[in-house]
């Protein structure tokens, strides 16, 4: 045999032996240090969304699965779980669930006060967050209930579902939104709510003031004229804190309130 072939064979043999020794070592340690996991935890973790958004107050989907199996958490904690996987998880855990808690929800911005509609005071460009603006009382809009417009919700959204448009209002992309609720928690003015993703009417204003005070600061704010309450054929609308609240159980989506509203505050949302 030529010395070349001997060298190649010799070196590969040594490498093979080193590899085998390492392999046996690894195999031994993985046996000794094996972790016995409840197989249900793995199954449930696969059924959970896997986004690790943290909205359930646990450190991630895997942690929630552990707590579910241990009985320390309820399935309702996960805000983005859909009906199918919720049913399967309840089957694995052997418990009953209420399916109405698991309809898909999306974030809705309850403010229409963009640069055209809301009265502008000053616009400080170099503020980086809504929270900072509210703390320092830098309000670019005269309305003290409106969206501040510096996009904390867009920054925190883990799915890039919220973007700021050119008129200074956030826009929710419903196909990307999973309803995790992180934007609802971070909004310093509580403008955002989670609503089931189905056709419904909603008053897109959170200003609790009455008539003239609202009209001074916004072209599309609710002025508490009560027209919607009077005209609703089903009596589904009532006033709370000077804002219309629509009872979704009695509403039949006739659209009369949308037509009569003089400020165009009440809108039909989630049309698709």
């Amino acid at each position, binding site marked *: 045999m030529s010395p070349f072939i001997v060298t190649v064979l*010799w*070196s590969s043999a*040594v*490498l093979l032996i*080193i*590899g085998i020794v*390492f392999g046996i*070592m*690894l195999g031994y*340690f*993985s046996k000794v*240090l*094996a*972790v016995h996991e409840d197989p249900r935890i793995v199954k449930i973790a696969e059924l959970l969304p896997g986004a690790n958004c943290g909205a359930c107050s646990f*450190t*991630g989907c*895997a*942690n929630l699965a552990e707590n579910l199996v241990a009985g320390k958490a309820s399935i309702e904690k996960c805000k983005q779980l859909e009906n199918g996987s919720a049913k399967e998880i309840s089957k694995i855990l052997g418990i009953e669930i209420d399916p109405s808690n698991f309809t898909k929800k999306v974030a809705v911005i309850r403010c229409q006060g963009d640069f055209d509609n809301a009265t502008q005071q000053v616009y400080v460009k*170099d503020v*980086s967050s809504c929270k900072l603006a509210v703390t320092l009382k830098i309000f670019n809009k005269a309305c003290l209930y409106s969206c501040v417009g510096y996009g904390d919700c867009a920054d925190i959204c883990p799915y890039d579902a919220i973007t700021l448009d050119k008129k200074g209002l956030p826009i929710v992309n419903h196909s990307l939104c999973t309803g995790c609720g992180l934007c609802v928690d971070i909004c310093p003015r509580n403008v955002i709510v989670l609503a089931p993703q189905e056709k419904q009417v909603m008053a897109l204003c959170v200003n609790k003031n009455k008539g003239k005070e609202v009209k001074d600061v916004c072209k599309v704010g609710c002025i508490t004229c009560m027209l919607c309450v009077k005209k609703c054929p089903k009596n589904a609308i009532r006033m709370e804190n000077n804002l219309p609240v629509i009872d979704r159980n009695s509403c039949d989506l006739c659209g009369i309130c949308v037509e009569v509203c003089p400020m165009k505050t009440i809108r039909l949302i989630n049309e698709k």
Partner: protein
Amino acid sequence: MEFLQQTFTVLINSIFAQNFVFIRFLALCSFVGMTTSMDNSIGMGGAVTFVTVMASVISYALYYFILVPLKLEYLQTITFILTIAVFVQLVEIYLKKAVPTLYRAMGIYLPLIATNCMILAVTLLNITEQYSLMIAIVFSVGASIGYTLALILLAGIRIKMKYITIPKFLQGYPIIFITASFIAIAFLGLQGIAR
């Protein structure tokens, strides 16, 4: 006395004058990837320190007790890569059993330590510089302290960066690379402190 002097020189050299991130430009991927928060960078620094020291000891033994007697010195690169990979796997198995919370927090970055080029560089440099075992350990500790220092420096700056307005064309990675280059230039000024 001479040993102490050499230890000190190697330590200072590997932390500052020959910093693996800023002067040798190694381990840059995890340098940029793991500096989003202070906790991340400290955790990554700790894990890398552990793996570097253990891998350099084991690969040192492998080289001098197996490869040199068999006259197979040219196999050092592939053997060292094998050692590092095995060791990272071991750490992963151990962490999963002993400290599951840390295991989850490290996530994807734990297997990524295996591809951290700084560790391979340390093991190879131990051989080419002909360090003794003690000096090799000191060198690997110094190298990982330098790496952790680099991570913490950039993480601190990146946390401050969240509160300033950056021109649009520099947002994201460009400004991080520019910042890192400035730190690297500053580190260049430390060249003279060790021979």
